[in-house]
């Protein structure tokens, strides 16, 4: 708790609430995505897991920075790096879904 107050007081409390809700929500989504991947075992679902993993990673980075373990510069780098991963992975998932359909039609 003392670590929290060390940042910006009241503001950090609402930030903490947001980060916690986001982390819980993305953790739930990540869990569902992993369960779906275990069922389907396809490349597209693996990429969906990675995308939600990146989304969850953002919350983790935010949480870790809040308690002062990361400098603001590293924090931004990591967070926006995660965005790049997220976008790349979703684009790849869409692309693979298309190639898989083509393959199954050709068969």
């Amino acid at each position, binding site marked *: 708790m003392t670590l929290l107050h060390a940042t910006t007081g009241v503001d950090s409390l609402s930030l903490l609430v947001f980060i916690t809700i986001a982390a819980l929500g993305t953790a739930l989504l990540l869990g*569902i*995505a992993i*369960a*779906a991947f*275990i*069922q*389907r075992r396809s490349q*597209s*679902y693996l990429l*969906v897991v990675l995308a939600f993993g990146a989304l969850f990673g953002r919350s983790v980075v935010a949480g870790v920075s809040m308690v002062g373990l990361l400098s603001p510069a590293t924090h931004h780098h990591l967070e926006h790096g995660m965005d790049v991963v997220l976008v790349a992975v979703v684009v790849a*998932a*869409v692309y693979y*879904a*298309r190639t898989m*359909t083509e393959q199954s*039609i050709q068969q």
Partner: protein
Amino acid sequence: MTEQRDRIREFVAANPGVHFNEVKRSLDLGTGQVQYHLRKLERSDDVVGKSLYGRKHYYTPEYGEWERGALAVLRRETARDILVYLISNGPTAPNSVAGGLEIARSTLEWHLNHLVEQELVKKKRDAQNRVTLELLHPEETTRMLQEVKPSVANRLVDRFTRLVDGLLETNTSDTDK
């Protein structure tokens, strides 16, 4: 029989086809504890286990082989939707089922594989090799649909795959396999 073992047996009797994690979660017991009691119950023939699609499902012994497979598949919401569609519309072509339920063709095929494997649905081909989906045991299927309901966790995963399949589906309105 111990108190916990009785609880587990009663839970399995009330929820035929439950899988291991559901027993653990619903009764709030540890993995080792559930494993131990289920093994004992299996050995004394009070409970029968059946492994399907990477999961072990549990039943009381009064269910036959076909019923066991069917009950496991009926715990998936989309599989249920497909069966209900076929009950109310009679034999239907796969594309019409996917269209009627607004699900992606890949979602339908995935569930259909299991429904065919567990002998709930038959793929009938006509002279032009066009497929019609037909229920194999309409009355028993209707009865068993009432007996089991999917759990919340099951529903969430099922709806998630429907959404993702729908998003990833390409609109090459495809040929009937």
